[in-house]
Structure formats: C-alpha cells, structure tokens
C-alpha cells in the first residue's frame, strides 16, 4: 500500500473509516451473539469481513447521497450513518427500531441518512437505486446513488435492464458488486460465466475491479467516481473482491461442504480489512496502539450498551399491525 502523506484532513477521515469498520464488526459480533443465544427472532446475514467495502464507499458519500442495500445490509446501514440502538431495536422487532420492528434485519431503511433500505430479494433494489438516480438527474441535483449487491445478484435479469437504461440516460448511479466469492452456498465461478465487469462494459459503463479488503483503495476509487457522477459522467460499476467471514446466514455453521476452513483462515488472517488498516494507521503514526485499543473498547461498549437497551425496549403495540399498510 502506498504511503500517504499525513495531513490533518486525512487523519480525520482515516480515523473515521477505521471507526466505522470497527463499528460494523462490533455490531455483527453482537448480532451473532443474539442469534446464538436465541434472543433474536429469525435469521440474519453477517457483513463481517466486508467492512472496507461499505465504509470505503459510504465515506465518499454525503447524507443527501443515497444507497440501496441487500439482505447482508447491516454494514451499509452503519456505514451510511445509522445508530446502533435503532438498528438493534429493529433486529429484535422493537418499537424504537428504524422501521418500528416491521422490517427486521433484511429491511432496515434509514431515510435520514439516505439509506433507501435493505432488500430481501437478491438484486431487488437495482431498479430502486437506478430510479433514485433518475430522480436526481431530473431534479437537477448532484446527488449520487450507490446500489450495493452481491455477485449472486449479477445473475438477475433486472440488473441488465437497469444498467442499460442508466447508461442510455447517463444516470448518477454506481453499481457496487460485492463479490464475496459465494452465491449463497455456491461458488461464484459456478454461477457466473465470463467476467463480472464485462457485464457493465457491454453497456458502455466504465467498470473497475478493486481489492475490497483495502479501505483506502475502495475509498480513493469511490471518491473519484462519485465526483465524476456529480459531473454527469455516470453511471459506473465497481467489482469489489471481498469475503464473508460467516456463512450465508448466521445459521450456516457447518459449511465445509462448500468452502474450506483453510480458505476462511487465510482471508481472516492475511486480508482482514480492519487489521490491515490498523497497521497502516500505526505505521503512519496516525494513532498509537493505546488510542486504537481505546477506540475499539469504546465501540465495543457502545454496541453492548445498545444491545442491552434493545433487549429491554418494548415491542410495538399490537394495534400497530395494520398501521402503515397505506400512506395517508
């Protein structure tokens, strides 16, 4: 990784990126514990291992910029600025959750930070993200929309329909393909013929491939593409090579039939985005060991406090069950 000159501005942004990645990991560790201790209804899909993707991209966005997210969406939600308490409340189906407990893990939306929502249909939000970009363009605003999706979603026809229109109409949308190597329980190479970036290039969309475990590389590319989108040069496509540490969902524990423990250990040991970035921060003298540990401890405490809060928080009143079917 090339050494960056240390300036006050990048000190601040580097620390913010570090914090946000640690926050995602802390959130997921707690969510996993909630599942394993049977305190969380349903299942959830862990983002652990992919933190540099969400953070590198979202740190290039403003509050007005929008994202659409996926079933593996906690990372995007945190990276776009969400609050732990409202997120854990949502995961537990509580009234104070972002969606008053009606959405749960796979549908968290946080409109105040431009998160148009996670989506439990693989590839289901690609139209929404592209429509959000169409709206920005018609409105004459320079807001950018990022569509997060996985390698599995590249097999959905919707992607090709909306990329075609985004390219025809030069929409300010960035398609961010988180290639974590697995489409649920199947290796990506078994479900995707040819190259992933070539899919976008076929429409004349500039496509990039980046190490999704390197938050600075992701952020540098994102900063430049977001700026170009604002100037009307979109759309763009990024394939981010990354890895999910857990299974497809928290209940996918015995997974050696589709991927080896050695492979998992290799990614966790040698390519972990947080460990790598921490080393960079220390090398460049941006923080000391003590400061890093203090940041980690503070975030771990925040997450634990938020879980404790959410566990005690009330469920919505049953009278809310038929509320919000229709908007007034």
């Amino acid at each position: 990784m090339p050494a960056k000159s240390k300036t006050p501005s990048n000190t601040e942004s580097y620390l913010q990126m570090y914090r946000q990645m640690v926050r995602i990991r802390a959130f997921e560790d707690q969510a996993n514990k909630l599942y394993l201790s049977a305190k969380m209804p349903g299942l959830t899909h862990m983002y652990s291992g992919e933190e540099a993707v969400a953070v590198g991209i979202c740190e290039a966005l403003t509050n007005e910029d929008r994202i659409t997210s996926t079933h593996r969406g906690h990372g995007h939600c945190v990276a776009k600025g969400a609050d732990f308490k409202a997120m854990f409340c949502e995961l537990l189906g509580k009234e104070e959750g972002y969606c008053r407990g009606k959405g749960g893990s796979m549908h968290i939306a946080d409109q105040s930070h431009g998160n148009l929502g996670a989506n439990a249909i693989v590839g289901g939000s690609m139209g929404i993200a592209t429509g959000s970009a169409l709206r920005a363009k018609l409105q004459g605003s320079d807001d950018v929309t990022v569509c997060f999706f996985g390698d599995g979603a590249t097999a959905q026809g919707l992607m090709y329909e909306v990329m075609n229109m985004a390219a025809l109409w030069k929409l300010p949308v960035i398609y961010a393909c988180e290639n974590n190597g697995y489409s649920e329980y199947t290796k990506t190479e078994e479900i995707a013929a040819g190259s992933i970036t070539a899919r976008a290039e076929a429409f004349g969309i500039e496509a990039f491939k980046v190490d999704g475990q390197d938050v600075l590389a992701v952020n540098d590319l994102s900063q430049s593409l977001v700026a170009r989108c604002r100037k009307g040069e979109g759309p763009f496509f990024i394939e981010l090579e990354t890895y999910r540490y857990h299974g497809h969902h928290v209940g996918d524990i015995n997974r050696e039939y589709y991927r080896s423990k050695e492979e998992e250990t290799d990614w966790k040991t040698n390519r972990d985005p947080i460990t790598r970035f921490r080393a960079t921060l220390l090398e460049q003298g941006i923080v000391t060991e003590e400061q890093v540990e203090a940041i980690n401890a503070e975030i771990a405490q925040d997450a634990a406090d938020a879980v404790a809060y959410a566990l005690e928080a009330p469920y919505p009143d049953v009278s809310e069950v038929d509320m919000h079917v229709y908007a007034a």
Partner: protein
Amino acid sequence: MREITLSKAVNEALAEEMRRDPTVLILGEDVAEAGTPFKVMSGLVEEFGTERVIDTPISEPGFVGMAVGAAMTGARPVVDLMFGDFLFLIMDQLCNQAAKTHYMSGGKLNVPMVLRTNLGATRRSAAQHSQSLQALVAHIPGLKVAMPSSAYEAKGLMKTAIRDNNPVVIFEDKLMYQDKAPVPEEEFLIPFGEAHVKREGSDITLIATSSMVQVAEGVADLLETEGVSVEVIDPRTIVPLDEDTLLKSVRKTSLAIVIDEGHQSYGVTAEIASRLNEKSFYHLDAPVQRMGAMDVPVPFSPALEDVTVPTVETVAQTARKLIAREMFDAA
C-alpha cells in the same frame, strides 16, 4: 356537457396533473412520440418534453423498479404498462417492492406511483394480451386498485391516483378507449373507495366493474322491459372497496350478481360476493352470484373468445333465474 373519449380523458388527466405538479412524470414503452399503441398519450411529449415523458426500452421490471425508486425519492411517476398481461413480468417490483416499502419502513418511505394498464378480452388478441388481472394485484396489501368504467371515471380516478401517496394500479378497458362519455370541462376528482350507484332499482343489484358496467346497464335496460327494476353499482375502486354502498343496496334488493371480467375462480367477484354473503346473509333471498370470465386462457378464435366473458344475455339469464328463485332447487 361535452363528451370525450376515454383515451382523451386519460390524456387530459395526465396533462392537468403534470401542469399542476412538476414531480409527475411518465415512463413506459412508446409513450413519447408514439403516444402508446392506443394513442392515449398523444401530444404529451410535445408539451412536457422527453425528460417527463420517457420512452423506455422493453424492460418492464426495469422501468417499474426505477419508478419505485423515483417515487421513494420524491417523484410521482405514472408507469405505462402496455398490456395488463405484462403484470406477470413485474410482480417482484410491484408486489415485493412498491407495495411493501411503506409498511416495511414503518411508515417512513412512501411510493406514490401509478401503474396504468389495461384489461379486457374480445379484441382477438389471444391469451397473452387479453387478460383481466385485477384480482392478482388486489390481493396484495399496500396496492390500491382503480377500475374506471367510462371516460368520466377514467379522468377522475387517474387524477386521484396521481395525488395518492401509495402505489395505485389503474386498469382501463382497452376496448373502451374510443368510447365517449360526458366529462365536465372544469376540474374534478373522484375519491377512492366511493362506489357509484349508476342506476337505482329495487328488485336486484348488479355490482359490476370496468368493462362489465356497460354489460350491467344493458341488462338493466333489457330487464326493465320485462318489468324488473335493476340497481347497478360500480365500485370504481376495488381497493379500497366501498362495502357500505354495496351492502346497503343488497339489503334493499335481497338479490345480487357480481360481474367482473377477471377469471371467476379466486377472483374479484368471489371476494365481493363473499363479503356480501358474510355481512348481509339474513337480508338475502339467494346466495350472491359470481359472474367472471371462464377459467380458460383467452382463446383466439372469435367463436370461442366471445363465450368466455359475461354478456348482457348471460347475465340477464342469471338474473331472471335468481328472481324466479330457480337457481337453487338442488340446495
């Protein structure tokens, strides 16, 4: 009052709403220069430009999904789905995304979009361009469903749909685009959930939607010559449904037939008939009858197609049997 075609009425509704509200835009196949195959949108692109009347590729899930996203972020898109049969192509975007977003977000996100499409057989278009699929979307909570029965309703319901903060599906009868009806020059809206008593009567109630309202009126004319007084009610929207007006009528006449051009099984007629049976059982002289399209794919041959949908003759026959108490000998 002046009379205009249903096509012109929809055109006026769109133009008026687009003038009133700059966030209204139209998306669909051949909506701009072509003005749709039914010429409903002729002239709109000239007035509002290609930024607001947007010709899309033949990518129904894609442009419906984009309308959902545009609606969530402040636009009011009217999506033109060229044939109602193409609903099957867009089910995820309409039913999993548009319909559920407001609820799933705990009321934080709205999807104020209109999907205008059509229904109706007997145009010799065969099984994939002739279906009446309103029951399919009426089944999904979060969607509203409007079914205009004339140019007047088509205009008033379209304007209301565009101003509604929910996804609304409007089914126009594709055989009715050139039919004229009195439509006021001055602005008007038709509220959702208010049925229209088209004709008052005392012997039997015909509840009919969209294309079937004409049939019901034909039956009323015919039976009047036989001394039967027929009440004809057009629900105008099936979601929300104005149950009160329907119940009031059925409690008065004690006999009812529900007529809708969708397939009869598991259909709109079944739902309405069931509610009437549940809520006015002791007022009824006979079970409410359903008359929908036959449960067959719509055939091409005119000889076959014409027998698949309710007609004045078949509905009148059922009505006569009901009135004569002849239908339930075996019951």
